[in-house]
C-alpha cells in the first residue's frame, strides 16, 4: 500500500509517537548499512567457465576508449532505526533507483526515479500495541522474518535482516527500471545502459544486448589459482578472458575483469571492475573477445571524470556517482 501522506523518517516517527507516546524515539539514528555485516558478505572464490580460450589470461585493450553509454542506472538504500520496540529494531528503509541519461555530455533524469519508503520489522517479535501502531502508521510494513529465519535474536542479526530486506527492495526497483529501459526500445546501438552492479537478476535485462553491468565490489572473485593471479595482476587497460557466471537463481551472463586505473602502489583490487554482458550462446570465442574489447573501451571511456570525492572513485564511473548524488538530493 502506498502511503497517502509523508513517509519520510521523521514523519513516520511523529505518527508512531502519536500512537505510542510512552516510547523512546531515536533522534538521529545512523544508517544501519554502515554497521551491517551480513553473512553473504564473506569473501569467497568461485571458479568460472572460461568462454574465450581454455585458460583465463590477460588481454590488452587496443584502440581509444569510446564513450558509448547513453544512460546509467543505479540504486541507493538507507535504513535507520526509528525506535526499538522492546529491544527489537523498527527500521525505516528507503530504496531508490534512477536512470540518468547523458545528453550532450550532461546528465538528465530519464522518466521518474523510483523511491520507496517502508518500515521493516520482525512482526512476530513485536507486541500487539506495536503491531497495531505500525498497521496504523500509513506506511507499508515489511516483515523482515517472513522469508528468513534467525539462528539467534541478536540485535545485529535483526538489523541485518532489515538491511537485507531493504536491499532486496532496492534490487527489485533496479530490475524494474532496467526492464523499463529495455522495454522502451533502447536496443543495441541506440543507447547502451550502464548498470551499477550485476545484471543477472532479471532475464530481460541480462539478455538485453544494450545493457552492461559493472561490478565494483569483489567479495566474490570468479577465479582461482593462476586465474586469480592473472586477474589481480591485470594492468591498466587490460582485461581478463571472458567467462560465464551461472547461478541457480540468476540468468547466466558473460563476464570479465577490467583494470580501469594504474594499480602500481595500490592494493590488488584497486581500479578493478567486473563487467557483465548478455551471454549469447551462439557467439564464437572470437566474437566474444571482440565484444569484450568493444565494451571494455566503452567502460574505459567512463574512467573520466573521476568520481571523487566518493571513496570508491577508483572503480566507480562518474555516471553512477551522478545517479547516487541525484538520489541523495531527492530523498
Amino acid at each position, binding site marked *: 500500500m502506498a502511503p497517502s501522506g509523508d513517509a519520510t523518517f521523521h514523519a513516520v516517527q511523529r505518527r508512531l509517537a502519536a500512537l505510542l507516546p510512552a516510547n523512546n524515539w531515536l533522534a538521529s539514528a545512523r544508517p544501519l548499512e554502515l554497521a551491517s555485516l551480513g553473512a553473504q558478505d564473506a569473501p569467497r572464490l568461485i571458479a568460472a567457465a572460461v568462454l574465450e580460450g581454455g585458460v583465463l589470461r590477460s588481454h590488452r585493450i587496443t584502440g581509444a576508449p569510446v*564513450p558509448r*553509454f547513453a544512460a546509467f542506472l543505479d540504486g541507493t538504500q538507507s535504513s535507520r532505526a526509528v525506535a526499538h520496540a522492546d529491544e527489537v529494531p523498527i527500521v525505516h528503509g528507503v530504496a531508490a533507483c534512477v536512470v540518468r541519461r*547523458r545528453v550532450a*555530455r*550532461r*546528465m538528465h533524469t530519464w522518466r521518474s526515479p523510483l523511491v520507496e519508503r517502508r518500515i521493516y520489522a520482525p512482526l512476530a517479535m513485536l507486541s500487539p500495541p506495536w503491531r497495531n501502531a505500525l498497521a496504523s502508521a500509513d506506511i507499508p510494513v515489511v516483515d523482515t522474518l517472513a522469508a528468513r529465519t534467525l539462528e539467534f535474536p541478536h540485535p545485529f542479526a535483526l538489523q541485518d535482516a532489515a538491511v537485507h530486506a531493504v536491499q532486496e527492495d532496492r534490487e527489485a526497483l533496479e530490475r524494474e527500471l532496467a526492464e523499463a529501459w529495455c522495454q522502451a526500445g533502447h536496443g543495441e546501438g541506440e543507447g547502451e545502459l550502464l548498470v551499477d552492479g550485476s545484471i543477472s537478476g532479471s532475464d530481460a535485462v541480462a539478455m538485453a544486448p544494450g545493457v552492461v553491468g559493472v561490478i565494483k565490489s569483489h567479495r566474490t572473485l570468479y577465479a582461482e589459482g593462476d586465474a586469480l593471479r592473472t586477474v589481480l595482476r591485470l594492468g591498466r587497460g587490460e582485461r581478463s578472458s571472458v567467462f560465464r557466471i551461472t547461478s541457480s537463481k540468476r540468468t547466466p551472463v558473460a563476464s570479465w575483469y577490467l583494470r580501469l586505473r594504474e594499480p602500481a602502489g595500490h592494493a590488488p583490487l584497486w581500479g578493478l571492475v567486473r563487467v557483465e554482458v548478455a551471454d549469447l550462446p551462439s557467439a564464437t570465442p572470437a566474437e566474444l573477445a571482440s565484444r569484450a574489447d568493444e565494451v571494455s573501451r566503452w567502460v574505459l*571511456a*567512463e574512467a*573520466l*571524470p*573521476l568520481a*571523487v*570525492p566518493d571513496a570508491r572513485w577508483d572503480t566507480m564511473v*562518474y*555516471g553512477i*556517482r*551522478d545517479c547516487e*548524488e541525484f538520489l541523495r538530493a531527492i530523498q
Partner: protein
Amino acid sequence: MTEPVWGRVVATERKPNTAHEFHFWTSVDSPIGIGTIVRVDAETPVSGQLPRVFGVVVEGFSYTDLQTPIHDVLGHDGTPGGASLAATQRTEIRLYTAHVLRQIPEEPLQPVPMGAVVLASDADVAVALRMDAYLQPGAHTGIPVGLYRAGVMEAPIYLDADFLLGPEAAHLNITGVSGLATKTSAVEWLLASIFAHFPQQKGSVAAVCFNVKGPDLLFLDHAGEIGDADRAMYARLGVAPEPFQNVQYFAPYTAKGFTLNTLRSNDQLSHNLTPLTWGLNEVMQFAEVLLNRDDVDAKADALIDFLQERVINREFRDPVLSSPHRVRSFGELEAFFRDLLRGLEERGGEGWRTHHVATIRKVRNRLSNISTRCAGLVTDEGTVSDLPFGSFQDRAVYVVDVASVEEDAQDLIFARVVSKLREHLERRDLGVSHVVVFVDELNKYAPGDGPDTYVRKMLLDISERGRYLGLVLFSAQQFRSQVHRRVVGNSGTSLFGRMDMDELATPGYAVLSAATRTKLATLEKGQLMVRHPHFAQPVFVRFPRPAVLRGRDGAERYPQAGEITLDVAVMRSLRKLDPAVSLDWVKRVIEGHEEADVLRARNATVQARPERVQSHFESQFRRIVPAEPAARPVAVPIKSLPGDDPYGF
C-alpha cells in the same frame, strides 16, 4: 504564455536566506548574471497571498563536485587538453546571491521563501524598483536614464523627476575613470532625456554647463553620428535622437582681448557664442574667490568692505582726495587709490579712516591685480557681457567655456554664475524654475581635504539647499572618494561608469559586493550603475550615445580660428550686430587709436547692442586732434635782475 523558469531559490544552514538577501541556482546556460533583476514566486501563501520577491543579482559562484583541484589534475593525467575527452561533464552549479529589491506583500517582512526564479519583465522591473509609484498615468514624473537588459528582456529605467530635480531630493553625481566612464556622454544624454520628459506641470528647466576641459561640451547644437542600435534605444526611451535645439555659448576673451578664449572660435559657429566679460561691480562681490587668506587679513577685509559699501558705485568725497570719485571700473578704482595715496603722502599721514597706509597699498595691489590675473574676463573699463540672468529659456543649454581660462578666473566664473543663478531662483525671476548646473572635475572644486575655498563652500550650499530653489547640481569626477562627503552625500542620484580598482578599494564602496565592484571595473562604454532614492539596490543600465557632435569630432570639423588682427577681431564682433560692418570701415575708424581704446569701444558696443552699430562704435572714440608743432616758449632767466641793481651787467 508561461515565463521560463531560470532558477530555484536555495538555502542551507550555512547559507540561509534573509529578508534582504537570497540565493538561487540556475542552469549553466541561463542568461542571468551580475546585475540581473529576477523575480521569485513563492509556493506557499502567506496571509492568503503568494509572496513575490524581486531581487538583483550581486554575486555569483560556480563550482563542480570536485573536492580539490588536484583530483582534476589526476583525472586528466596532468594534461589540461584531456578535459574534452571526458565522456561526461562534471555536475556544475551556477549559484547566485541576490539582494532584495522589494517584497510583495511588504508585511510581514520575512526571509525569502523557496520558489522558482524568473527573469523580471518590464512590469516586474517597474515594481521591483518602485518606479510604479511615479509612472502612473497623469502623474508621470519618470525621466528615462537608460535600458536595463537581461537576456532578451529589456526594460526602461526611470528616475523620479521629483528626486532628480527637486524638491524631494535632487542632484546627480557621476563617477568614473577618464575616457571610459562616459561621464560627459551620460550627462548629455540625461539632459536630453530631462528636456524630453520633464513634466510641464513641474515647471521649466534649463542647464548651465561649465566646459572645463577640451571641446567636450562645445558642439551640443550639432548632430553627431549614432547607430541603429542607439536609435532603437532612443525610440524605446522616448527621446528624439537630435542635438539640443537651444544652446548658447559663453567664453571670456583671451588675455590679448582680440578673440574669445574657446576652441569653438570657428567663424561659422559665432552666431550663438557670446563674450563673457565682467567689470568691477561683478567681481568685487566675489573678491574672496580670488584673494586667499594670505592676501586678505582682517584689516584688508575691512578696507574692502568699506570700499564696497562707501566708495564703489557712488560719488565719494574725502578731504584727502583731490576731487570726488565715482568708482565703476577697475580703471576708476586705480585712479581712486592713486589719488588717495598721493593725498596721504602729501599730508604725511600714516592712516586713513582707521586703515593703515600699508593696508591700503596691499589692497590696491591685490585688487588691481585681479584684472591682470583674469585678463580677458575682467575688464578695466567695466564692460559687462553676461549670461542672460532673468531671461533664461525653457529647455535651453548655456555652456560656459572655461577650459582655456586661468584657474583663478575659472573659480571666479564658477562662483559668480552659480551665485547669480541662486539669487535669481530665490527671487523667482531667472526665467526658468529649475536649472541644472553641470560641473566636471569635482575633485578640484570640492575636494574632501584641502583649504575651505569659496567655491567649495558654495557647492556645499547648493548640494544642501539647492533642491528647494530648483538649483540642481550635476557633478562628475574621477574619484568620488576624494570629493567632499557632503557634496556627494547630498546627491540623490549617483551614476557610476567604468571605475578604477584603486578607487573601488576605498571604504565608500564596501557596501557593494565583490562581483558588483568587478563589474564596475569592467563596464563598457555606455553602461552605468545607477543609485536612486527609489531603488533599494543599484541597477545597471545602458544608455544611447548622445545625438550630439562629439567634442573631438567637432574640433576637427570646425577648427579653432587662428590668431587674428585687431581690426578683424573688431569686425567679427560687430558683424554679429550689423552684417554691414566691413573690414575697410573698421580699419578706417580705428586708425590711429590705441589698442586698448579700440577694444573698449568694441566691448561697449557689444554690450549696448545699439540699433546703429557703426555710429555707436565711432562715437566711442575721442576725436583725434591733428598734431601741431608746439611754439617754443621764450626762455626766462631763473632770476631777473632788479631794475635798480647797481651792480648788474
